[in-house]
């Protein structure tokens, strides 16, 4: 953690974080120095020399550029010492002599008390007020914001000039306009050739804020450019939320084998990649030259697109803590066009069933499938693709397997229902929701199935304790699904909403509000407004989503689903199904029994405690559902009320028809 260093600036004592650059300390101490090549969102490169300040360190005085001088030891700083002032004046004359009409330069000259640059007038003097002053903002923005390097300097010494490679327009330039955004003189102009957005400047400014945040904050936040969503593996394991062995546990001692450190070491070197050319978050990663060990492409060296968090967590869920397996699994799922989450969660279910003896090698065509059976998982994947063997069954998903095994193998249907992590036919995504009632709702109350991109409330609920009452949880289960649906409706990536956070988010907003990351929400609204010309706020946004959300629910009803019984999840998502699970978190569960259920756990055997806890939790869940339905304007059976449809303006006859028989 950062150490603080005591320094004095112009006699004033100041504390600075060790290793931070001097300029920040100078400014926050209330002093200033002129700067030209400095930009708050770009790495400093100390080329304009205007911020030169005198430091005295260990009795020795020297001049350093404040913008990129790292403070490592106590020292004395003077921004007004005579040599510093003198040299700044001379520098200002140089600038004025070369670019006399550029406002930014005239500003600097004024700050330095200089009016005459004629001593530096030469054949290279440019009269243009929008001349390029070689500050390098654009080259750095191109590299740091969008991770390209389309613009750079060519020419040595006085011949230095800005250009694209070989002096020709570069096809890699995607017109992100970061360069124009940071140019202090207007030397770079933007010619819009777009799809007629109403206010392109508004969009650009909103986008630039994001670019700047990614360039300056990402490295110390989620490291999306560095490791991408793989960083989440580490976090979930630490917080006991990483699915392990079909969601029985939340962490594993071998999780380090597929954590972000391991994955980073295998990702292609230095390639921060985006889903589209120019994305400044650039969190996509690939593992290059990976030699496949199995399947139709065995022996080929391929590029594996990923792995993302979900795929790694699916691997953990299956107990397969092996990076090479993970890459091969990722690759073949992609190649065969099957979802890694569905396959992973389904396999985890199969493995638990195998370990419990519900199915045996007789049923699996001879394949042994305990947790961790990496090779066998790959074999099943290939069978799925070939359309033969046990893999075909697995390929039909958990719902189908539960039915088949109960019907044909005489398996205990209740047990399978408890451990088969699917709802509405979709396999659960990779987070342990057991200890968060709000998240259980987040998963189970989603129309599409248990996909966390509707609501991810685990920290808010479990860790922050920000949703103590049912009403709090219901409010969150109202807002977040609608907010998150909105991304999908507009075709926007959600990662820049909360996978990078403004530096002052916590300072500016109360914790409850900070959780919504208000400044980024506003950014999305500005994008929308810039595109369509229609102003947006939270109410209107929620309305936009709610119209679609409720429409979806109605269609679901029309198809014969969309009622309460379809929103009741498998117990594995709510609490410990087995004695083993209970005992892995006994302290926590015993405490809940005591404090919330009002039952003294002492003297009771685990199976009994499991039963008591289950009854409690299932009851809690039903209560939650009541409150959520009410908040959403649905009947007690989970069907949208017609008055709600009216409110949203979607009470079209065809839609009312879908739900009219379910009204209360």
């Amino acid at each position, binding site marked *: *953690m*950062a150490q*603080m260093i005591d320094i004095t600036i112009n006699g004033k004592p100041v504390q600075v*974080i060790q290793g931070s650059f001097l300029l920040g300390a100078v400014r926050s101490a209330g002093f200033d120095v002129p700067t030209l090549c400095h930009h708050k969102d770009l790495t400093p490169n100390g080329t304009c020399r205007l911020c030169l300040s005198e430091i005295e360190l260990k009795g020795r005085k020297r001049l350093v550029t404040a913008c990129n001088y790292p403070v490592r030891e106590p020292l004395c700083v003077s921004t007004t010492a005579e040599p510093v002032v003198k040299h700044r004046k001379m520098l200002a004359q140089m600038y004025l002599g070369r670019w006399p009409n550029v406002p930014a330069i005239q500003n600097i000259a004024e700050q330095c008390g200089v009016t005459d640059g004629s001593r530096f007038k030469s054949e290279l003097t440019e009269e243009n007020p929008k001349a390029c002053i070689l500050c390098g903002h654009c080259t750095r923005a191109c590299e740091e914001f969008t991770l390209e390097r389309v613009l750079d300097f060519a020419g040595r010494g006085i011949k230095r000039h800005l250009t694209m490679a070989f002096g020709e327009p570069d096809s890699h330039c995607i017109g992100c306009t970061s360069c124009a955004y940071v140019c202090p003189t207007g030397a770079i102009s933007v010619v819009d050739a777009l799809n007629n957005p109403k206010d392109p400047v508004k969009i650009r400014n909103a986008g630039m804020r994001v670019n700047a945040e990614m360039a300056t904050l990402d490295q*110390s*936040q*989620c490291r999306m450019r560095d490791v991408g*969503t793989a960083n*989440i593996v580490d*976090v979930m394991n*630490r*917080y006991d939320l990483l699915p392990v062995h079909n969601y029985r546990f939340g962490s594993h001692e071998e999780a380090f084998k597929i954590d972000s450190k391991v994955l980073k070491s295998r990702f292609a070197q230095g390639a921060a990649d985006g889903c589209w050319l120019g994305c400044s978050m650039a969190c996509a990663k690939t593992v290059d030259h990976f030699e496949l060990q199995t399947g139709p492409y065995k022996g080929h060296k391929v590029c594996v697109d990923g792995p*993302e*968090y*979900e795929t790694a967590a699916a691997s953990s869920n299956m107990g397969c803590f092996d990076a090479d397996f993970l890459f091969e699994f990722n690759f073949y799922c992609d190649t065969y066009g099957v979802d890694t989450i569905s396959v992973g969660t389904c396999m985890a279910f199969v493995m638990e069933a195998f370990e419990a003896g519900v199915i045996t090698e007789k049923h699996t065509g001879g394949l042994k499938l305990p947790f961790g059976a990496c090779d066998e998982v790959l074999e099943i994947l290939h069978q799925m693709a070939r359309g033969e063997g046990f893999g075909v069954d697995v390929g039909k998903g958990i719902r189908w397997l539960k039915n088949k095994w109960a019907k044909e193998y005489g398996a205990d249907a209740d047990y399978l229902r408890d451990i088969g992590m699917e709802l509405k036919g979709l396999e659960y995504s990779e*987070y342990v929701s057991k200890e968060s009632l709000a998240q259980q709702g987040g998963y189970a109350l989603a129309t599409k199935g248990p996909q*966390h*991109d509707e609501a*991810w*409330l*685990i*920290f*808010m609920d479990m*860790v*922050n*304790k*920000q949703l103590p009452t049912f009403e709090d949880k219901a409010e969150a289960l109202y807002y*977040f699904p609608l907010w998150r649906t909105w991304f999908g409706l507009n075709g926007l990536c959600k*990662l820049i*909403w*909360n*996978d990078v*956070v403004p530096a002052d*988010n*916590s*300072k500016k907003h109360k*914790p409850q509000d*900070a*959780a919504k*990351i208000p400044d980024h929400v506003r950014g999305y609204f500005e994008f929308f407004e810039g595109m369509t010309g229609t102003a947006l706020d939270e109410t209107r946004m929620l309305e936009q989503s709610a119209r679609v959300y409720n429409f979806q629910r109605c269609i679901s009803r029309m198809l014969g689903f969309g009622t309460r019984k379809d929103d009741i999840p498998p117990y594995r998502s709510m609490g410990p199904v087995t004695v083993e699970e209970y005992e892995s978190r006994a302290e926590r569960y015993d405490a809940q029994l005591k404090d919330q259920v009002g039952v003294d756990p002492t003297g009771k055997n685990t199976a009994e405690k499991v039963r008591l806890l289950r009854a409690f939790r299932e009851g809690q869940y039903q209560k939650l559902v009541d409150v959520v339905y009410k908040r959403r304007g649905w009947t007690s059976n989970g069907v949208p009320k017609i008055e709600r449809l009216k409110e949203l303006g979607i009470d079209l006859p065809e839609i009312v028809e879908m739900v009219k028989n379910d009204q209360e």
Partner: protein
Amino acid sequence: MIRVNENEVPWRDGMTVQDCLDAMGYDFVHITVTVDDVFVESIRYRTTRVPDGADVRAIHLYHGG
């Protein structure tokens, strides 16, 4: 005794905000900490003392991937 996100944590003299986070195993990067509703900057976690009986909130700003 102090409370960290409503969990009871034993207090000791000289306890800092960082100590509270360590006690709970909170090492997530996007955390907002308040001590009795007063916001504490992350660079001050190791130097800000927590008084006995304090209500410490460590809000994790996270919404999954």
